[in-house]
């Protein structure tokens, strides 16, 4: 601390304030430096493409560079009038409903079962979670063989019971259900693990108190376990809905959108329009329409969760 005669005396508080400001500036800079690698990648690979995609959606841009130039809202108009776009969107929503409900309910059931304290708990935990670690290609390999109408395991077992063979992936009536079953087997482990962790966090005293009050196991399930799991359920529903809406890999590899477009998801339609149909502008327009939908879903869920936690 130094004071000069001509300048007004600097108080101790002022000095520390300056020092703090300087330290703070230094800290901010350091913070930015650490965030830089991520920030650069984020801007390069997310922000720039997203903004560029928005621009593309107003152009007639194609893979070959032909037909570029602004076309206004023509792509959006075409997309909104396109029956295939609506069909793919419908398929995606249908898949989301079909997959989210069992992925929540069944994973809770599995977690409850394991939490009962069965012998060999680690083995149960492992076997329910293991498929989640597999790559989508591997999962699809297994399942497309099992679904094979003539040589597949499933129809083989069905035949033992005298049932007629089912073309699991080729029959328009069951193809989507088959995709959902595969997805269920593959991804349920994640939800299961989160539920299991949440279950183990419920304080034991609550069960003791409930038992003293004469509550049975079912009563405890509905009055303690499920309410205590609400935050986990809300989180899982959010994650699940968003994951299901952007379904692509397993459908692309299992059915390639078939039969008759019955399993084509919106992301697959975007891929087809852009990469095999060459029309980047049109395909960007569909992705932005879809983006709006996802934002709306996310906002709605945010509202619901907020209202719950406020209540």
């Amino acid at each position, binding site marked *: 601390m130094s004071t000069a005669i001509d300048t007004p005396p600097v108080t101790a508080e002022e000095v520390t304030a300056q020092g703090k400001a300087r330290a703070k500036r230094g800290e901010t800079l*350091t913070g930015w430096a650490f965030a*830089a690698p991520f920030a650069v990648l984020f801007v390069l690979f997310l922000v720039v493409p997203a903004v560029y995609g928005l621009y593309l959606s107003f152009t007639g841009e194609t*893979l070959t560079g032909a037909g570029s130039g602004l076309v206004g809202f023509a792509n959006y108009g075409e997309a909104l009038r396109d029956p295939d776009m609506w069909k793919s969107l419908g398929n995606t929503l249908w898949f989301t409903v079909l997959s989210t409900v069992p992925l929540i309910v069944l994973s809770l059931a599995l977690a409850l079962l394991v939490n009962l304290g069965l012998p060999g708990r680690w083995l149960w935990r492992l076997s329910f979670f293991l498929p989640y670690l597999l790559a989508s290609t591997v999962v699809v390999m297994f399942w497309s063989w099992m679904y*094979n*109408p003539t040589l597949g395991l499933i129809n083989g077992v069905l035949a033992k019971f005298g049932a007629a063979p089912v073309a699991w992936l*080729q029959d328009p009536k069951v193809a989507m259900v088959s995709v959902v079953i595969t997805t269920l087997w593959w991804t349920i482990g994640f939800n299961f693990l989160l539920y299991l962790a949440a279950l183990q966090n419920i304080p034991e005293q609550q069960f003791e108190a409930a038992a003293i009050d004469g509550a049975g196991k079912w009563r405890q399930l509905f009055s303690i376990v499920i309410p205590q799991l609400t935050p986990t359920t809300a989180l899982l529903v959010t994650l699940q809905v968003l994951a299901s809406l952007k379904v692509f890999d397993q459908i692309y590899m299992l059915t390639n959108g078939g*039969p008759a477009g019955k399993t084509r998801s919106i992301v697959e339609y975007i891929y087809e329009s852009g990469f*095999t149909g*060459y029309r980047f502008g049109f395909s960007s327009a569909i992705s932005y329409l879809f983006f709006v939908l996802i934002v709306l879903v996310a906002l709605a869920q945010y509202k619901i969760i907020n209202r719950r936690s406020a209540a």
Partner: protein
Amino acid sequence: MSDQLSRRGLLKAAAALAGSGLLVGCAPGASRSATDLSYWHLLTGGDGTVMAGLVDAVNAANLGFHATQTVLAWGPPYYTKLAMASAGGRAPDVAIMHASRIAGYAPGGLLEPWDLDLLAEVGLHESDFPARVWEKCQYDGKLYAIALDTHPFVLYYNTEHAERAGVTDALHSMKSPEEFTEIAAKLQKVTGKHGLSYGYLGDGSQMWRLFYTFYRQTGADMKLVPGQKAQVDKDAAVKTLTFIQSLLNDTIASRSGDGGTATSEFLHGESGMFLGGVWELPVLKDAKMPVDALPIPTLFGTQAAYADSHTFVLPRQSKVSPERRKHVYTMVAEILKRSVKWAGGGHIPAYQPVAHSAEYQALKPQSNYAGIPAYVNYDPDVWFTGAGSDFQNYFAENVQNVFLGSGDPAAGFDGFVARLNKLLDRPQPV
């Protein structure tokens, strides 16, 4: 205090270093020498092995260059990557493309034409190729592709079963759908399972190949011109689809056969005939089964055969090295001259000196169907058709239930045409 600061300094430096390393990682690699040729193709399995052998043989001939092949997954992944590489001007020096895809590539400037004078220098002339194949390699009066082969959809049969059913001669002489059905029924009695194997389930290409063969045999054509309605012959299509549907009745052929099942069924003698591409031949030969092959018989009056061709193309490069380009011409000529090896994989060589050679003529059953290039039918010429294209998916989407026996042929075909019209109506992206 000073201790902590220096630690921070160190961390800052580390972060800066990591950041710069990241940016350096984005820099493009070193440029290639003029003698290194990059060659992309989509040939895997048996075809991939033969092609690798051909490339090795040409490299070993010490012609002043070394070609390195890059093999990519067949179908949309390959064609998307090739189109993007060409659009960016950083394409390989030479690539394989199905003749049916040229109409989707050449108009957008993704390909560069071959120079006829340079071709003549390496000994390749128009007269060395079948006329129809040469014509398919043209776009707008320029030559964009050099054909390596023609690979049609053909009819295989089990010679022992045919002998026992007494249909060997009839197989070669049949002229109507009724005769075909009769032969299949006789073969079915011999095998006790199916008369015919045909895998199509979930595979639009397979459905299209058989449909288009019979459709063209009725004398019908399919013309697709952007901005106009699709010109098709609905009666012929319904006739064709009805006939195919009648074969897939679980007695003559499985109603829901997929590729793998159909091949294994035929291999194990559980059927007498097999409809498949010539590329299936190596698998059948390796199994040492009594097999013969012939063009799909003309059942509807006009000689016709669905086929495609593997061709060599020059994808667009923003900087062309004349020296490397010259080597490419040599490489292609050398591969063509050795293409009798390629014929071992079932394909019909496009290079006529090889096709007429005694060595090729001695290959059985390959030479049985060597006449197909004279009357071959490729996919309709428009940007969205061809091998591995969405066109064949759209066909499957609309007619798979017809093949499965649950859909109405007319309704299925109408759905397909509606889809085509929609594509024709859209702005052409190439």
